[in-house]
């Protein structure tokens, strides 16, 4: 943790939601600045040097996705999106535009906090640079030597599997959409071949997870993408 309290900007038009999110975050030791429009939110983001932005997609003046695109033009600050819509398309659009995570309304405080902690940790890591060995569960990944071990035993990964794992490890906790993964691993011409991705993800899960049907780390965001959860 940094010495300064983390700064969080909350862009949300409903004042009751603003109120409880603020209370929660302040109880966690964050400094919270509120905005109720995209315009106001962008101003706050530019001036407050935040560690995290919480963004509602349905804002009165402009679409929340515009906000993300605008922000990603000059900043890598993690964004957690709040959505009242259950339609996956909106979430995918927000994630593809550069959001890190999403929460569907209504959500509990516990869930909110969990996501915020992950996102804050990511912003910390970005600042401090990445380690050469990553561990989650019983899996150990040596980025320098390109080796993977599980329970101390070496695990064989194909080049694509390794590239996939590498991508996830570089973005811990972030929801990666099918499109993003395909572009990163296979290249921009294969962004529509999501069933290949599913086959490799299944293989990866079978190699690394204890119970592939109820995975602990490599999680599926149905209809959206995948995320690697590292405690």
């Amino acid at each position, binding site marked *: 943790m940094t010495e300064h309290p983390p700064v969080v900007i909350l862009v949300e038009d*409903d004042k*009751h*939601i603003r*109120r*409880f*999110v603020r*209370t*929660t975050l302040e*109880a966690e030791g964050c400094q919270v600045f509120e905005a109720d429009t995209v315009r106001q939110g962008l101003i706050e983001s530019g001036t407050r040097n935040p560690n995290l932005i919480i963004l509602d997609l349905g804002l009165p003046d402009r679409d929340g996705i515009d906000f993300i695109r605008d922000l990603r033009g000059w900043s890598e600050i993690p964004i957690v999106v*709040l959505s*009242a819509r*259950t339609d*996956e398309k909106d979430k995918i659009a927000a994630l593809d535009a550069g959001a890190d995570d999403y929460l569907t*309304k*209504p*959500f*509990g*405080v*516990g869930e*909110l906090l969990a996501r915020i902690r992950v996102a804050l940790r990511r912003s910390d890591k970005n600042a401090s640079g990445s380690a050469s060995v990553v561990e989650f569960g019983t899996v150990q990944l040596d980025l320098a030597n390109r080796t993977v071990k599980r329970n101390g035993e070496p695990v*064989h*990964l*194909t*080049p*694509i*599997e*390794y590239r996939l794992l590498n991508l996830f490890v570089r973005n811990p906790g972030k929801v990666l959409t099918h499109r993003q993964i395909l572009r990163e691993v*296979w290249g921009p011409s294969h962004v529509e071949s*999501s*069933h*290949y991705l*599913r*086959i490799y*993800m*299944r293989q990866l*899960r079978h190699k690394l997870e204890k*119970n*592939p*049907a*109820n*995975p602990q780390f490599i*999680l*599926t*965001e*149905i*209809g959206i993408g995948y995320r690697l959860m590292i405690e």
Partner: protein
Amino acid sequence: MYQALFGLQACYFSWSIFPILKTMTNDRPNPDELLERVQREEEKASRGKLKVFFGASAGVGKTYAMLSAARQLRNQGLALVAGVAETHGRAETMALMEGIEVLPMKEIKYRDRLLQEFDLDAALKRHPPLILVDELAHTNIQGSRHPKRWQDVEELLAAGIDVYTTVNVQHLESLNNVVSTITGIRVRETVPDKVFDQADEVVLVDITPDELLQRLHEGKIYLTHQAKSAIDNFFRKGNLIALRELSLRRTADRVDDQMRTYRQERSIERVWQTKENLLVCVGPQPGAEKVIRGASRLASELGVEWHAVYVETPLLQRLPSAERERILHTLQLAHELGAQTTTLAGQDEAETIVGYAHSRNLPKLVIGRDYKSWKPWCRSFSERIGRLSSDLDIIQIVRDPPDKSRKDRQFLQKRQTSPTKQTWPFYAWAVVACAIATLIGALMSPYFELSNIVMIFLLSVVLVGIKYGRGPSVLGAFLSVILFDFFFVPPRYSFAVSDIQYLVTFAVMLMVALVIGQLTANLRYQAQVASHRETRLRALYEMARDLSGVLLPDQIIDISHKFVESTFGVRIAILLADDHDKLHHPAASRYTVPIVDFSIAQWCFDHSEPAGFGTDTLPGSPILYLPLRAPMRTRGILAVKPTTPRLLLIPEQRRQMDGFAALIATALERVHYIQVAQEAMVKMESERLRNSLLSVLSHDLRTPLTSLVGLADSLVRTKPELSPAQLDMAGTIRDQAFRISALANNLLDMARLQAGEVQLNRQWQPLEEVVGSALKARAEQLAKHHVQVYLPHDFPMLEFDAVLIERVLCNLLENSAKYTAPGSEICIEAGIQDGKATISVSDNGPGLPIGSEEAIFEKFTRGEKESATPGVGLGLSICRAIVEAHKGRIWAENLVTGGARFTFTLPLGTPPTLPDLYGEEEST
């Protein structure tokens, strides 16, 4: 150069081959015929099979042969039943019956006597694979369903029951008169040839005449009292030889037919069939029955269809009703023998027939031979046809000798009961007309020539002819000549004629009067006939017009009563069928209806065939039952009670009645579909309203719910900590808010699924991803349950919409968690069955209430009514909607080991494989 030559040759060759190909196609059965054959075979497959044991006379051992054949099948284990088997108490025959189940006969009371008859209903109910019914030609006792036993057999066959039966050659309809001329005994019990010809198998039971006579002398042949008296006549060797020949020939014909069909079907040799169907002309002359039988035989020998036509000319319409009835019977006979019968109306028989033959392409006419007429100037019918058209073949058949028919005619005339209309006033008016003409003539005679006075008389004859028809006009013609002679021709007031030239005047006057009278009378008659026809057609048209506007079944019934009753002079009742195919009277109408026999009506409805009066089925009933056949299904029954029964027997009238019935049926169907459409419209409208309402509700609920959940959570976390009771309350607020949210989600999903807005985003994916994500999503609810997942390692990828199938799994898991106690086991399994992937979620809880396995998938149903367990029963109906959208099936069942299991299927398909592009070498 060579190449070019070669190309030319090839070209020539291909051209020369072309006509060969063409002729080859001619040799093959044409597709229509093949289709017809397939249909015929299909029909045959569902129908029972008929096997006929055929013999030349009584005593050849048909029953014995039938029982022996049955015996063999019985020993092979076939549970056959004997419906009727006339053993006549013979020991050897009785012995064969041992061990065969005998169907009890039905007892029918007839004229104070109890008679036994074959019990058709019991046989249909028992539905054995094979039934023995002896004596196909038997006539049933009055009061049975069908007048003839062969009709019972037809119904058995239609019900899919195989039948063994026996027939003697003299009982075949077309051979009936041949046999009677040989033996001198006329048999009344006959079987239509089509029954015999359509039998699947015919076995000829044959013994030599000597052997048969031997058996007769040994008393081995059962004979009734009447037969004993005829014994000497019948069982003469000559007769027996002739009968044997007949039966052998008939069987040979059949075999020949089969052979021809076989060859045709196998295309061994294409027999060129022009299909020159026969047209038989039925006239009023006696002896027409013989012509019909002859034509029937001819048609079956040629293997063609045949039509029987009766032309009703004005002259023929004047025949006494008894003779008309005979013509109808002749037509009926033709119909029974398999002809298509038609009644035509026309001025001249020959012209009408020729026109009909040309329009239907029937180049062969069959007519009865005319006897030498005493009128040498009259051309015979065949000559008239020959003059009209030279391209028609005419086949003449000898009629029965006329003397016998005269007897027939007298017999028929005796039966004629309908009183003829009083005609004497017409004749009186003819006399009056002549008197008036005389009076006018007397007034004119001083000033005019006699030739002008003749005109007055002719005028009176014309007027009488127009007004009163032929008889009075003939009377008028003669009377005019007499009066003219008496009053005007000198010497006046005497019949003597001074000048011989007046005789010419008389003759010409009489001729002119007669001809004019005849012409005008004919004209009048035709006008009458035309107006009758027009009245009925107008009624049909008006009813169609009235029916086209109605919206309620009751209106249709009222209109039908109005038109049918007034047009035909009958009383009718209309019975409508409900959804369970049961007939019932419509709501009270203002018409009095005849009392209807519901069992006949139901039979008529079930078979969709006419029954009752004038039909083959229960003709003893006074009421005719017509099915109201509409394009989609039979809508009900039209019961017609005629006041003058004869009228309904006239084919033309029946056809018109059928026309009315068809109109009523179509109107009923139309009204039915109007109702269906209206109901659908109302349903659609309300569904749409509900859907839009739900969508607004669920969407707008979310924002305040988020605050509610968040604020409740914040309460829990406030410092200083709340008391346990307060904490509990805050927790409850949170849970309830989530419940509302889940409900809103369900409602929205259901609304969208039902509105058909959901487009499946199908992709190939491993099932375990969805299972894992569903388990994660429901982790909170499943925290206190043990969940086991059994997915085969090599389970193939499936193509489905992951979001929706996850929703199905979530709902099923949530459901299991909700209805089982904490600590219960929940098990997710997947497998492959019948080419489909099956995924099931089972638990070891209390299971489903018995009988609710299907109902729980309906909207707003829960396991227990009004229970405290939360959740609106939308979850499962959402599951069903989703699974069905994937062309799968979902069902629930209770496990033998306790607990409930929900299973759904998904189609397998062929999952894509990784192309080489992605194939990689092993990593280091």
